[in-house]
């Protein structure tokens, strides 16, 4: 468990953020907070996304709704990119 989950307090210290920011991200559904033995944790798989959220918030002054919109659009962009690659591969059948 130690390697898979990182406690909220550790994250706050390392990234210089308030725990309320993480709560807000959790409330809007951008991250998932797990409670294990009365302590709150985040799965390490979410760290890369969390870092992105912190950067967008700190560096571009985006609020939570803005971050949510960005993440949705990036997910859509990834999906479209994947579809484009599949279609390009299919097109090669006819070249």
């Amino acid at each position, binding site marked *: 468990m130690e390697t898979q989950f990182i406690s909220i307090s550790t994250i706050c210290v*390392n*990234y*210089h*953020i308030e725990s309320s920011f993480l709560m807000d991200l959790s409330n809007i559904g951008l991250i998932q907070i797990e409670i294990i033995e009365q302590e709150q944790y985040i799965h390490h798989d979410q*760290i*890369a996304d969390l*870092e*992105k959220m*912190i*950067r*967008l918030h700190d*560096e*571009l*002054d985006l609020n939570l709704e803005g971050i949510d919109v*960005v993440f949705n659009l*990036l997910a859509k*962009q990834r999906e479209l990119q994947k579809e484009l*690659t599949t279609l*390009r*591969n*299919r097109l*090669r*059948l006819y070249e």
Partner: protein
Amino acid sequence: MAFIDYYEVLGIPKTADEKEIKVAYRKMARKYHPDLNPDNKEAEKKFKEVNEANEVLSNPENRKKYDKYGKDWKHGEEFEKAQQQRRQQQSQYSQHGSGAEGFGGQDYSDFFESMFGGASGHSRQSHRPKFKGQDYNAELHLELKDVYTTQKQVLTVNDKKIRITIPAGVENGQLIKIKGNGGPGMNGGPNGDLYIKFIINNHTEFKREGNNLYKDQPVDLYTAILGGDIHVDTFDGKVKLKVKAGTGNGTKVKLKGKGFPVYKKDGEFGDLILTYQIQIPENLSEKEIELFKELQKIKEG
């Protein structure tokens, strides 16, 4: 080393005040931020320029120096050195942090380095949070026949040798992540990851779609009419096929399990789909023409 017009980079006039610089910078940063432009080298480059322009123009001291010597930076540098010496002699020299709002941990142009000495004056660096290093992107070009079987390769990325296993059946355009092999973390953060995109070139007679392979298979006219055996090249060898009598041009035949290996599923394969192309005989002899005419007569009754 080329002069960089930081005003042009931010799209503002030379008379712009602090507020205008900040607004222009924020707008540009939102447009070119790497998190909003994944895998976009052009945006990344532009973002660095924008950031650098802000480092200079948002700091009154740097801006003054830039405005004064910008185009003639070499001369300005010499002048600054002389001034610095004078200040040191008077024991009044003190270095100020830039205090500029900006994004840390990045490269600066040679122009910037020579004028402002890199990011050394960046006062925010020391207490910035730890961040994961930059993710690297690389392309690996392989032949279709190479990815028919699982293989190991050694890649050299930024002078570092990385051993990777490429599972059979990898798709053209597929991305795999190699954890921790990206850029070093910022302020003690973990390393970034390496993303490898596979470009699969196909110089075979087979077309591939997902796990299935497609191929046009020539069949001579007589075998198509009378039926018979043909030998077909599949990706892993020859197979013998029975062609039914009266097979038409464009008939499709599916050979189960003779396609491409399924990615990360050992022993599973897609199908090979053959499209029969009936070959019309050419350069007929007189005898053959005679016999065909005979056949035609019989047909017309």
